[in-house]
């Protein structure tokens, strides 16, 4: 079906009849063979964007390029793309074999060609013993693999996946993720994968596009997303447990909060600034107090979450909490929502500590903060300052 092609979205906008703007002038390029993940809270437009690439939603404005071909106005059946649906959408009255071959049959592939490719994919996905069963007789995982198989058999120019793993239980999801990456390495097909789970995004995506309210926040490799978030929302959304925030002030080359002063990395324009900022520290950004002369902060742990080889220590800090719509939007994608439990002024921190560190609730714990693990954001616009 031809080697992999890139997908380019130019100023794509989608306004629904009621006036709601689901996608707002998104520019995005997926390089040939790349595995791009679209991630963001529910209602951020990631699925709508994917459906527009598939042709299932009309485009209000902007152009979609599949390789060198402008497919913006093409019908789904006229685009050489395959899609895996969240509900798998397997044809109930067809056997697994006919489900897998349906796409090829629609595009007029000869019978032996169809059978060969179906057999091949069935072997790869371990579906040989299921070929003559009906979807109703399969388990969730098996159905998911058949849905994948149906796309793979087509050898399309691109895979479009709409939260395909969300209906699986946790353990099966992890193993399917691994299979998905392996498959991508083997097939090398350009893929756009939509999920609301940021762990899935970070582990699968060669690049990840974070969306919010229809606007593309940042599109970058997972490490850079993790280390150089362009704004407060991306910082809060990426990483689990999510980053801790606190209002602080920068003066004379150091940031001060909760009675502790941490020097600002030299060379950044913050070194000379004197202003209020939002300070972000990842739970893994704290060291355990030691003699290396780093500034220390002492906190009183309230909850200790036992993870086995590590622990999450949850304690509140004597500094103003940060509660902007960006953090709230990011939070709604996570499960924990601590904002409600605390009095307005004290911020709550989650700190990841090694499993063997003696920690008891109520006993003060001193932590060291290294300047190069800090993130700074503008309190009004939320854009990153580092």
């Amino acid at each position, binding site marked *: 079906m031809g080697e992999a092609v890139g997908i380019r979205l130019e100023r794509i906008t989608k306004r629904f009849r009621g006036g709601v703007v689901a996608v707002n002038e998104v520019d995005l390029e997926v390089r040939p063979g790349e595995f791009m993940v679209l991630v963001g809270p529910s209602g951020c437009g990631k699925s709508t964007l994917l459906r527009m690439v*598939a042709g299932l939603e009309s485009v209000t404005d902007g152009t979609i390029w599949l390789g060198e071909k402008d497919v913006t106005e093409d019908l789904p059946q006229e685009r050489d793309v395959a899609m895996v649906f969240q509900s798998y959408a397997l044809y109930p009255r067809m056997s697994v074999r006919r489900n897998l071959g349906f796409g090829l049959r629609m595009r007029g592939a000869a019978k032996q060609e169809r059978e060969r490719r179906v057999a091949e994919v069935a072997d790869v996905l371990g579906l040989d013993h299921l070929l003559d069963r009906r979807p109703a007789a399969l388990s969730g995982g098996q159905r998911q693999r058949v849905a994948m198989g149906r796309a793979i058999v087509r050898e399309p120019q691109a895979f479009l996946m709409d939260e395909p793993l969300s209906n699986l239980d946790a353990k099966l999801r992890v193993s399917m993720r691994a299979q998905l990456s392996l498959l991508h390495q083997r097939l090398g097909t350009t893929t756009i994968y939509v999920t609301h789970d940021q762990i899935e995004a970070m582990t699968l995506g060669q690049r990840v596009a974070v969306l919010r309210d229809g606007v593309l926040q940042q599109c970058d490799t997972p490490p850079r997303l993790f280390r150089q978030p362009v704004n407060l929302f991306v910082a809060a959304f990426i990483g689990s447990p999510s980053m801790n925030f606190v209002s602080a002030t920068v003066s004379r080359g150091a940031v001060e909060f909760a009675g502790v002063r941490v020097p600002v990395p030299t060379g950044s324009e913050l070194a000379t600034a004197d202003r209020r900022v939002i300070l972000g520290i990842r739970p893994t950004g704290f060291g355990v107090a030691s003699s290396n002369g780093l500034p220390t902060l002492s906190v009183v742990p309230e909850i200790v979450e036992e993870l086995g080889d590590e622990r999450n220590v949850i304690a509140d800090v004597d500094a103003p909490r940060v509660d902007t719509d960006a953090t709230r939007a990011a939070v709604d994608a996570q499960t924990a929502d601590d904002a409600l439990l605390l009095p307005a002024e004290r911020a709550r921190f989650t700190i990841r500590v090694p499993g063997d560190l003696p920690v008891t609730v109520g006993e003060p714990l001193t932590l060291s903060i290294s300047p190069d693990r800090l993130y700074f954001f503008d309190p009004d616009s939320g854009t990153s300052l580092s």
Partner: protein
Amino acid sequence: MTTRTARRARGPYLRAARYLVLFLFGCLFLLPVYALLVTSLKDPASVSVVTMWELPGKLSMDSFRAVWPKLQNGFVNSLILAIPASIISSILGAANGFVLAKWRFPGADFVFPVILFGMFIPYQAILIPMFRVIASMGLNRDLSGLILVHIIYGLPITTLIFRSYFASISEELIEAAKVDGAGMLRTFFFVALPIAPPAFAVAMIWQFTSAWNDFLFGIVLTRTEYWPITVALNNIAGAQTVPFNEAMASALLACVPTVLVYVLLGRFFMRGLMAGALKG
């Protein structure tokens, strides 16, 4: 006895009473059919209106033999009429239902009620114009006019049945077919039709019985040798000059096919109703 045990003690009586009432109603409903069967199986000589309820002394098929020659033509005509009419209107209804449920065009929401009203129209209000047009097309010289009319006036109900049935298909299934490259016709053929049999059963039952049992169109649109069964039956038994047992025998013969259809496909009919096919 505490109320709980009282209620449990009363339980079996309640259930027995319920069965009894259901059984009684069953008899009431079957009474006319009993009269029909008994009278047509009696020996013609011993038949009289007064002894209608008595069981037949010895069974005899004479009544049937007497009326069958007069009814045979009508019976065959009705088969030639009802089978194609119900099949074609069901197929067209399936196509309409699919488009109106899953392949909607602008204005589809307005078109459907307009079609639906066609189901309720009193035939008297279109009788004379329809007759003039069918006659001017010369279609009343044989059964083709009647078949065409039953197909067209059957479309609303079959469209309704299939539309409410296809509405239950998940949208993603249709989209999957689209993405897999199937256009409208192939999506209809590969996705909708395979799961349509229950709806087909309901449509076929409804259409077959309404085509078989119709009288008004039959009497207006056909000539003597093309009369459907109902008109033939009315011509034999309706004139009252015919003996009681022949009237009953002909009435019995006239409703055998529809009763058979109901008894065999009855459960589909119920399942169709459950799926809201006929909520209308």
